[in-house]
């Protein structure tokens, strides 16, 4: 992590803890979520012998795959200081339209193009409204969320569209050498995005925009263009999420993906990314998504009521952010 994450301030300002306490905290910065993940896994491993089995661990990844892929896009937007609430609605619309296209033509390629294309267009639309339209991202994506969800229901008449050829389901239900594509695809995506964020000029510019957009603009960087790319990229990732989702459940459902925007944001935030932009790491987001999956899986194994899971998850979000805030001082 080259930018904005690895640098330790020598003088972090007035009101900081005495230097004796500061050292270990500094070393822990950004590691809070990893430690939390390990602790949670230890607890589940002790309480449920099934937890650590390879099959179960793979299950966890499959369960979080869609959220993890969407969260990667959400993270890019949050790094620029924005937010995206539209992913659930866009996921449903992309699913419904691509399902319909596949049913009509039996062409998996067309289905994939429709799925990714719909999501990218919605990302681009949100990007245009945020940059050139100067609409705050929160309001803008609240609107596009509702529009996308509405179109999905209107188009499908509220009825799920099911039954696809295997080629279209490959991303969601296929396997390579016994490893589900739902495991392979998120890993490949995260490896690519890690490179993009840490090594490319684009990644550096994303951090710069989130830290200080005006200074970045006055350095001669077309900040609006890069924000547009970021929103489109997030759209693409939502589209990939939709492809995984539709393939897995073998159905394009207009009511799918409800609440995904909040789960994606939760993964990003648990992973230590600042909601005000400019600070965060891709590895943190992976860990954030895994924490959510592990908690849900572990509590399931312990036969704990799903409603109770939601309480646990909420508590984890609050504590993750609290620890992160305090280690920053």
């Amino acid at each position: 992590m080259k930018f904005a994450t690895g640098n330790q301030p020598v003088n972090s300002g007035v009101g900081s803890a005495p230097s004796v306490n500061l050292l270990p905290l500094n070393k822990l910065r950004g590691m809070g979520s990893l430690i939390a993940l390990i602790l949670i896994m230890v607890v589940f491993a002790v309480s449920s012998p099934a937890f650590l089995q390879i099959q179960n661990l793979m299950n966890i990844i499959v369960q979080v795959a869609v959220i993890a892929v969407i969260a990667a896009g959400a993270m890019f937007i949050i790094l620029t200081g924005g937010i995206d609430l539209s992913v659930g609605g866009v996921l449903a619309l992309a699913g419904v339209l691509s399902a319909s296209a596949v049913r009509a033509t039996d062409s998996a390629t067309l289905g994939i193009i429709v799925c990714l294309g719909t999501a990218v267009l919605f990302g681009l639309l949100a990007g245009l409204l945020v940059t050139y339209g100067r609409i705050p991202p929160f309001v803008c994506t609240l609107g596009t969320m509702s529009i996308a969800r509405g179109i999905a229901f209107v188009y499908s008449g509220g009825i799920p569209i099911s039954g696809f050829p295997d080629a279209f389901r490959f991303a969601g239900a296929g396997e390579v050498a016994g490893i589900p594509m739902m495991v392979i695809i998120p890993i490949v995506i995260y490896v690519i995005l890690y490179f993009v964020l840490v090594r490319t000029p684009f990644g550096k510019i994303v951090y710069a925009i989130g830290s200080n957009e005006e200074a970045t603009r006055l350095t001669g960087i077309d900040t609006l263009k890069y924000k547009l790319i970021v929103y489109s990229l997030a759209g693409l990732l939502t589209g990939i999420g939709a492809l995984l989702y539709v393939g897995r459940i073998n159905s394009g459902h207009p009511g799918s993906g409800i609440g995904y925007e909040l789960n994606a944001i939760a993964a990003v935030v648990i992973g230590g990314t600042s909601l005000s932009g400019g600070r965060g790491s891709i590895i943190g987001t992976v860990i954030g998504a895994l924490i959510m999956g592990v908690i849900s899986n572990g509590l399931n194994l312990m036969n704990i009521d799903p409603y109770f899971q939601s309480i646990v998850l909420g508590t984890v979000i609050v504590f993750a952010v609290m620890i992160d805030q305090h280690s920053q001082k």
Partner: protein
Amino acid sequence: MADALKMRGVSKRFPGVVALDNVDLTVAEGEIHAIVGENGAGKSTLMRILSGAARMDRGEILINDVAVEIGSSQQAINLGIGTVYQNLNLITDLTVAENIYMNRFPGRGGLIDRRKIADGASQALAEMNSDIAPSARVGDLSVADQQMVAIARVLAYDIKILILDEPTSSLSKAESEDLFRNMRRLKSLGVSIIFISHHMDEIFSVTDAVTVLRDGRLVGRWRTDELDEHALVHHMVGREVTEMFPKEVAAIGDVVLAADHISVDDLVHDVSFCVRKGEVLGIGGLVGAGRTELVKSVFGACPRRSGDISLEGQPIDIRSPKQAVEAGIAFVPEDRRREGLITEFSIEDNISLGSIWDLTRHFAVDFKAGAKLSEGMIQAMNVKTPSRKQLVKNLSGGNQQKVVLGKWFCRQPKVLIFDEPTRGIDVGAKAEIYRKISDLAKSGVAVIIVSSELPELMGISDRIIVLNKGRMTGEFMRSAFSADQIMLAATGKAGTESPLPRGQQQ
């Protein structure tokens, strides 16, 4: 006179830095006391301790010879210590009256008594000889008026010691004089004022005593009339600043940048100017004269209503900073924390960001090249830092400005525009920056400098144009520089007497 305030043996460490080391400060009742020192000398930390925003590690504070504990800004106010910070801390969307009564709205049954706060606010402002309407929205006021409001807000408490942190940094000369009148009035009421300023003339015109800090240590305390400017600067920097303005005559060549008939909104009207190779063009005028908007429009950062720009004789339509930078124009903004730098980034990342595409090989940033570039610029600009990895927010103002310079220097621009190049920068770093500007011009760069400091403008410019209310009201060659004439042009009173060789008189 009794001593209103004594701070004794104050020490404060930050991780890796000793901010204050055994510092004493004594301020008499009804005294205007300047605290001076280069940036990083410890002035701000000392004031933050006094105003309850920071805790000291060691030392004691006595108010009227009674030892006190200051743990929060509320405690400081209860002890009669009020602070007006440089950034004023006003809520711009609320009215003047609401800002003044913030935290202690008088009212009945949980509702604010609007008449009472309006009356109280107008009385407080009237005492300061100000006619600001209590119902005005603070964001609509000029900076000078906002400052009045900030002072009135503090004075609404029973304040015995008033801290003013660089109060004149965004005020014009006349506005500063108003402020000084109010300071003297408060003094006559027995209020002690601690005044932080970088401006020598202000310190000598308004203060009674001076405490000088350097590198977190006390240099000494003097009555102001015991000192002269030269001696004070010497105490501050601990060395002789032999030549503040190392102006060297550079060979002035062809016109590099020409801007014709530039208008920006209602702020700049039909201004034309040009700058030549090796020339330093100064742009003078009062705050709000449209100077920043003029240069920002040339840089593409501020949309212009009309006007043409040409670079090296070729017309160029600059609509964005990106186009300007690609054409070889660079801009060092006035507010470097907000506009010039990404303070959460390291020195290396800030410098690399300016040349990010030049540092890219096969889609990836070449970090080795970025490190080499930034190391080179840290050396060339003499940035004082333990490492290129240091976050810019931890540097002093002068060193931050050197990082901004470094970001542009390595791109070898044809035109370099500075907006208030030395604002908030200490004396030592100022001289270094003037030296860099002079070197730049000598190397053939066309330099444009916007400055509110007349000595600075006259010290480094080859030619000065002056704006008043968005119009050009004067143009002076170096041989004909006269502080009086430039000031007259800036206030719009020069009329047709000022020489205007380019025929820009409206």
